[in-house]
């Protein structure tokens, strides 16, 4: 899986966004969702987009996924247009809602993208077994989504997004609907999974600790119109080094403070390390 990055020269970024604007036409007039967005995501890099509601972070992700098209500017994924990258299945995607098909069991849900792209039955079964082991749900292959907890459903959705070994993962608040305990466990798992697969990740969140814990870089956005306020590099070591211990670490809190300051555009009030989301 990780060797798929080898055939791409490192010069080609996973995502390259240049001067992108997105204007929505509504009944009340035009709304500028994104303005002058420039962003580069290197292969294998984990980048979080963080900002208050309405800052356009989800819109930016949808543009990268070609679920929407930019009004102006250019956007490429592994050197291809977003549209071509989507058609070539260059990315895997997960949303805030797991979005599993309730009438398919867990393995059939994971196999869905493979099935749509004509992968044979035996190969599909092998791949879904592999992914179920990766997300720790091997015992639930034959369960249906309504028999799983929210966290388990989301793990199935992540397994599904990894089905075709994409070099890029797009995630739109995938843990947003989960409770704090499950959320932290899922974050740890995601760090492990991305380390194993070597995929680049664009991760939308509104949780500062989540962004800091997961990311190589955190993109802080401001609303109306959506702009990139700042990009900060989080140096908390390689993915393998980021364990549960890290959440108690001084460096972790420092980075949380930095991102919070950027987000609020002022010095943080309140005690350091206390989560303000």
């Amino acid at each position, binding site marked *: 899986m990780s060797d798929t990055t080898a055939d791409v020269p490192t010069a080609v970024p996973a995502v390259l966004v240049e001067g992108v604007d997105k204007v929505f036409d509504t009944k009340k007039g035009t709304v500028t969702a994104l303005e002058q967005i420039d962003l580069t995501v290197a292969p294998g890099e984990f980048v979080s987009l963080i900002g208050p509601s309405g800052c356009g972070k989800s819109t930016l992700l949808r543009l990268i996924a070609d679920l929407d098209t930019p009004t102006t500017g250019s956007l490429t994924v592994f050197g291809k247009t977003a549209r071509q990258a989507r058609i070539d299945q260059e990315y895997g995607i997960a*949303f805030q809602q*797991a979005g599993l098909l309730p009438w398919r069991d867990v393995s059939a849900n994971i196999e869905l993208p493979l099935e749509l792209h004509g992968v044979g039955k035996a190969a599909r079964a092998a791949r879904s077994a592999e992914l179920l082991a990766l997300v720790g749900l091997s015992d639930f292959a034959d369960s249906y989504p309504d028999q799983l907890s929210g966290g388990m459903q989301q793990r199935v959705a992540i397994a599904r997004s990894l089905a075709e070994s994409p070099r890029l993962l797009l995630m739109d608040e995938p843990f947003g609907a989960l409770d704090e305990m499950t959320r932290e466990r899922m974050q740890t798992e995601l760090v492990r999974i991305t380390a194993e697969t070597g995929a680049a990740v664009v991760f939308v969140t509104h949780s500062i600790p989540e962004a800091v814990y997961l990311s190589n870089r955190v993109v802080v956005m401001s609303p109306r119109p959506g702009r990139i306020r700042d990009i900060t590099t989080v140096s908390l070591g390689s993915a393998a080094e980021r364990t549960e211990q890290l959440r108690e670490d001084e460096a972790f809190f420092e980075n949380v403070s930095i991102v919070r300051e950027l987000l609020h555009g002022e010095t943080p009030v309140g005690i350091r390390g206390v989560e303000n989301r």
Partner: protein
Amino acid sequence: MRGQATRARTVLAPVLLGLFALALWQVLVVAFDIKPFIVPGPIAIGSEFGANLSTVVQGALVTGGNALVGLVIGGIGGILFAVIAALVKAVDGLSAGVVSAVAVVPIVALAPVLYAMYGANAETARQLVAAIAVFIPVYVNTLRGLRQVRPVHRDLMHAYAASAWQTTRTVTIPGALPFIFTGLRIASSLAVISALIAEYFGGPIGGLGKSITSAASSSNYNLAWAYVLGAILVGLVFYCVTLAIEMFVTRHHRPTS
């Protein structure tokens, strides 16, 4: 244990009420000496039903068979047409008016015309009446179901670069199943009613509807009521079987996140 107790109560209560109503009916018929041409007592109907069981069953097979053929043809037609209307906007636009027009036509009224078209000794006319009656609720409900695709599923299929047909097959139609079955459940009763009433307007002898009219016209009221009982049972069987299939097929369709 409590669950069992509640279940027993939900089953037992209506059964007891039914038995009580039947007993009251019998008492009233006997007490006021009500004549059979007004309404016979349940015991008279029951014994007549038992005595003519084989002819009732034969009639039920004819009427039920016609209803089933109509349900299958109308059901498949309704689902297919709805899928096409959901895929091709122009078809939807063109058909909307026609469908609402057909919906208000009293379909059984077509029976005499259809007998003229297909011959009075063929069951075709009855099956067609049932099929047309079935088509409308199945089409309307299926089309509504096909438009219920959740945005997250639509995004997902778009992200997978799935073709329109792939999306229809893997997401839209399975998602519409609860709606399709609601339509079929309504239609199952309509199929029986239409097939039965169509018999009143002519056609070959043998169905329950024909038997009801001929028994009533020869003043054999108890027998007429026995056939009515048979018709009710056919309707119940159709409803319960569709309901059972619906519950089985949509057992995992509870909405999940």
